[in-house]
């Protein structure tokens, strides 16, 4: 007996394959849902792991600083005093200046940041620049520079090419000797931009002496980075550094957490953590549920077989193990599919990140441990999905299992209680009583489909949100064609000069002042923009309140952006402390007069006259918005570039196009992923639920066919069941999707950018259509299943 058992076991194993082959549609659907969940998990974790790893490696290798500060101009001797601050181990000072750039054949305005370099990389104690191509630039000879790699690639430049750069109002021709990357510009954000734009913004490095000479800053620096020793108190270092730099026009020191490039990476990692947890958790729960339902049904159908096996002497454990093995095949399929899909998605997504985040090391890193973790996760899932089903089916005593089952117990339903429904046809009664008999299953089915619909909503949320930003920012708010920035505060008469340029139709002056806002324990550094009196100047940048109505800054008080308001937890009426980061850093108190909707991050507005009163100075401008005759755009741009006061020009049209180019492709890809996943879930849940229902009711349906019901009359019972699930699921799904999008908008919103919570009607329409289409396809399969019912076989079987 014992010796013969292995042979029998092999026979019983063959049963696994037969059973699975018979259920191949369901097996495929469950494996697909599993694969999707696992793929998102793997892709999210891969991106997270890759970014984390590359960042850690690169920061260590390039000696990324811990504390950063900008200053108007400080003598080099100050660095020695900075070095004496307790906890500071390294100091690297230098010059960084905004520049305008001309690249041959590229007619749009290009701006950049030029940064000083020592003689050799070894002389950099912090934030070391890595030369990717070519060589380190040499002082004096031929005005040599390094160009940031993304800029170099975007413009298809070659080593030895020359570019025109306006240094301190003088245009100079600089020669490219190489390309570089540095840890403080892993992501190169143009000032005030939403996204990197490598065509219109670049970072350049020039030998220190050359740059000092060009800006007449010999023996001085305007930015400094600090490396801290173990156990240093960063807050204390920042406080002391601020005190040291204050006399030289310090603009406030900050740590890595406020360093722009690092902030973006940190925010990205935060999002990835959310993404690699919640969606996979839901997907995998749905998969576990489908597995449970399908396996329970299979084991129910096989009750007599189980009983026979038991009577042969198989133990409960052995039979249970048999079904666990069967489920393992499914889990293996799901794990294999999910791993492959996840590895591919991880690669595609890290590729997308690589366009924004530039590391000199390979970003993509597939961690084998991750796949092991995924497999373990799936094993847990299998056990969760299978255990209950196996336990209940295996524990029935053989004598009971071999007997025909008594008819399922049904009760009178609401039909019989609601007088209006008394006249319902028997088919309708069958449908409703069935739904009422298994409320848990019906609810889970509805939830599964609802989740799929919500996925479709989330898939289009990004598009809606960005459409809204474009409408508000580029459409309603920005009525100008170009923005011009000046090197330093200029007298108001420069506006007359600008207006005098042929082709300039109107000009609006703005005075931007760097400030640090404080409210209670919170503080944020940004700028206040003083906007001119609307009676004297045409408003070219409109301020909008949260209902998108135009607002004007009041005579007194501040308008602050939603982002700044939430960062400071400020409301209208609150009194903010302003530390003005200019001259002798006066402190003032100003009340918040209102909140405005803009997508420029932390921003604040005042009327120019109110700002001048706060600053206790006369009118001046640092920024101007221009409306330009489109036919003369090029000439106007040329004239602006020649003006020594102008630090940079940006064209709205160009920045809008780059915004769309950059984000469009990624958005499309993410939408595609989302739609595929959501559709997989929809089909998976609908198909599986309905297969099980079909299997459970095949006897009834066959009976109806035998007693003369036509195919359609029978089919409608299951289609009705499907319709009830789908019709309940759609509104629930739209609601859930809306909530999820709200949560996403909340979690993605940072100081740097705000994700508005906006959903268009088409998004709901598309979600409904996709779910209906998926249901329709499933309905066709169902119909085919009913057509294939073997009437005679079903009636012979005992159920």
């Amino acid at each position, binding site marked *: 007996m014992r010796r013969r058992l292995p042979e029998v076991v092999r026979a019983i194993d063959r049963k696994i394959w037969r059973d699975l082959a018979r259920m191949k549609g369901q097996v495929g659907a469950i494996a697909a849902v599993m694969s999707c969940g696992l793929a998102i998990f793997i892709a999210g974790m891969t991106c997270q792991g890759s970014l984390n790893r590359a960042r850690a490696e690169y920061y260590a290798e390039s000696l990324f600083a811990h504390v950063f500060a900008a200053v108007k101009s400080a003598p080099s001797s100050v660095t020695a005093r900075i070095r004496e601050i307790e906890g500071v181990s390294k100091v690297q000072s230098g010059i960084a200046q905004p520049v305008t750039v001309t690249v041959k054949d590229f007619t749009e305005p290009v701006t950049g940041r030029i940064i000083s370099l020592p003689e050799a990389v070894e002389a950099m104690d912090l934030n070391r620049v890595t030369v990717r191509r070519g060589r380190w630039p040499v002082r004096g000879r031929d005005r040599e520079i390094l160009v940031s790699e993304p800029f170099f690639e975007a413009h298809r430049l070659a080593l030895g090419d020359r570019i025109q750069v306006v240094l301190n109002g003088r245009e100079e021709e600089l020669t490219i000797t190489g390309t570089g990357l540095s840890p403080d510009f892993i992501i190169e954000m143009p000032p005030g931009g939403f996204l990197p734009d490598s065509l219109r913004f670049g970072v350049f490095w020039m030998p220190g002496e050359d740059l000092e000479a060009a800006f007449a800053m010999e023996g001085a620096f305007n930015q400094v980075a600090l490396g801290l020793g173990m156990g240093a108190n960063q807050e204390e270092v920042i406080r002391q550094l601020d005190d040291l730099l204050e006399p030289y026009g310090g603009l406030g020191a900050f740590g890595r957490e406020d360093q722009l490039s690092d902030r973006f990476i940190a925010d990205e990692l935060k999002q990835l953590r959310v993404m690699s947890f919640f969606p996979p958790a839901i997907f995998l729960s749905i998969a576990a549920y489908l597995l449970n339902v399908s396996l329970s049904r299979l084991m129910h159908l096989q009750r007599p077989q189980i009983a026979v096996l038991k009577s042969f002497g198989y133990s409960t454990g052995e039979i249970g193990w048999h079904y666990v093995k069967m489920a393992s095949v499914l889990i293996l399929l799901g794990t294999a599919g999910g791993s492959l899909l996840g590895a591919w998605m991880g690669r595609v997504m890290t590729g997308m990140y690589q366009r924004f985040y530039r590391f000199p090391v390979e970003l993509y890193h597939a961690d084998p441990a991750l796949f092991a973790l995924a497999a373990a996760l799936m094993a847990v899932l299998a056990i969760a999905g299978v255990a209950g089903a196996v336990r209940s089916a295996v524990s029935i005593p053989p004598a009971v299992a071999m007997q*025909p089952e*008594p*008819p*399922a*117990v*049904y*009760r009178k339903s609401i039909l019989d209680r609601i007088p209006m429904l008394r006249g319902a*046809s*028997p*088919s309708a*009664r*069958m449908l409703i*009583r*069935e739904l009422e*008999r298994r409320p848990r299953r019906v609810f889970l089915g509805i939830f599964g489909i609802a989740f799929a619909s919500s996925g479709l909503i989330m898939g289009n949320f990004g598009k809606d949100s960005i459409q809204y930003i474009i409408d508000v920012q580029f459409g309603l708010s920005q009525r100008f064609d170009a923005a011009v920035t000046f090197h330093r505060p200029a007298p108001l008469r420069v506006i007359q000069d600008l207006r005098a340029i042929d082709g300039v139709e109107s000009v609006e002056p703005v005075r931007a002042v760097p400030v640090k806002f404080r409210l209670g324990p919170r503080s944020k550094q940004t700028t206040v923009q003083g906007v001119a009196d609307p009676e004297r100047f045409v408003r070219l940048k409109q301020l909008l309140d949260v209902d998108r109505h135009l607002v004007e800054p009041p005579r007194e008080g501040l308008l602050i952006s939603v982002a700044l308001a939430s960062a400071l937890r400020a409301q209208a009426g609150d009194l903010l402390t302003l530390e003005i980061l200019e001259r002798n850093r006066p402190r003032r108190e100003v009340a918040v007069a209102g909140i405005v909707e803009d997508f420029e991050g932390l921003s604040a507005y005042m009327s120019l006259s109110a700002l001048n009163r706060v600053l206790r100075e006369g009118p001046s401008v640092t920024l101007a918005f221009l409306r330009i005759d489109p036919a003369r755009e090029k000439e106007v741009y040329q004239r602006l570039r020649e003006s020594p006061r102008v630090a940079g020009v940006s064209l709205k049209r160009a920045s809008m196009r780059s915004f769309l180019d950059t984000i469009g492709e990624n958005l499309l890809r993410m939408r595609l992923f989302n739609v595929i996943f959501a559709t997989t879930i929809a089909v998976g849940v609908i198909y599986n639920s309905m297969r099980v229902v079909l299997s459970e009711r095949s*006897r*009834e349906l066959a*009976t*109806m*066919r*035998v*007693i*003369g*019901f*036509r*195919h359609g*009359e029978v089919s409608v019972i299951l289609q009705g069941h499907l319709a009830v699930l789908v019709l309940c699921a759609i509104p629930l799904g739209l609601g859930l999707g809306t909530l999820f999008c709200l949560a996403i908008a909340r979690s993605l919103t940072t100081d740097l950018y705000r994700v508005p919570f906006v959903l268009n009607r088409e998004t709901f329409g598309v979600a409904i259509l996709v779910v209906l289409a998926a249901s329709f396809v499933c309905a066709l399969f169902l119909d085919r299943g009913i057509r294939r019912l073997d*009437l*005679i076989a079903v*009636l*012979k079987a*005992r*159920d």
Partner: protein
Amino acid sequence: MAENRRVVFAVRGITKVYGTGGLTVHALRGIDLDLHEGEFVVLLGASGSGKSTLLNILGGLDSASTGEVRFRDEEITAWPAARLTDFRRDHVGFVFQFYNLIPSLTARENVALVTDIARAPMTPEEALRMVDLQERMDHFPSQLSGGEQQRVAIARAIAKRPGVLLCDEPTGALDVRTGIGVLRAIERINREFGTTTVVITHNAVIAGMANRVIHISDGLIQRIEVNESRCDAGSLKW
């Protein structure tokens, strides 16, 4: 005498082969048979002899491999599936060994399922009264005994006033006493409505109820017994 009455089914040379290639089963090997209006016929034979196959072909559930079946002068063997469905709907009442009631419908509703689509049905209540179940009309199958469930199945089969009533081992899953109750119901229908009735059974005793007993063995009609005097179900001995 039965032979003078109108022929309901005329079966000529039907065979039925299941499967293809080497694994074929000859379920029927050439059956010729006439069934008459109002006749009560019992099909008797060992398990696997082809009784169910013949019954299913008569009822339009299955098709013969060769040969023809005429129902009131129309050749049903040539009909497409949709026409066969209508044939079952309008003319055939089925009763099976496993009652095949819809568990989510009460006795009355199970019958209403048929009366809703039939041309000239009786009411569900009338049909259930015929099988003595007027007391239990609002019970679900799970609340009925096996015999009661089978009687609901009979009520459902006859509620449309079918031309033929085909019963495949209707007492196969029941004990003797209950089985007799079920047979009595079938016999009463046959008597009162003159419904042509074919009952399959393994049990030779039931044969006493029939006008004719057709013995089938190995896909062929072995012999046909004609009962000059039928005994009623209540007096059957097992």
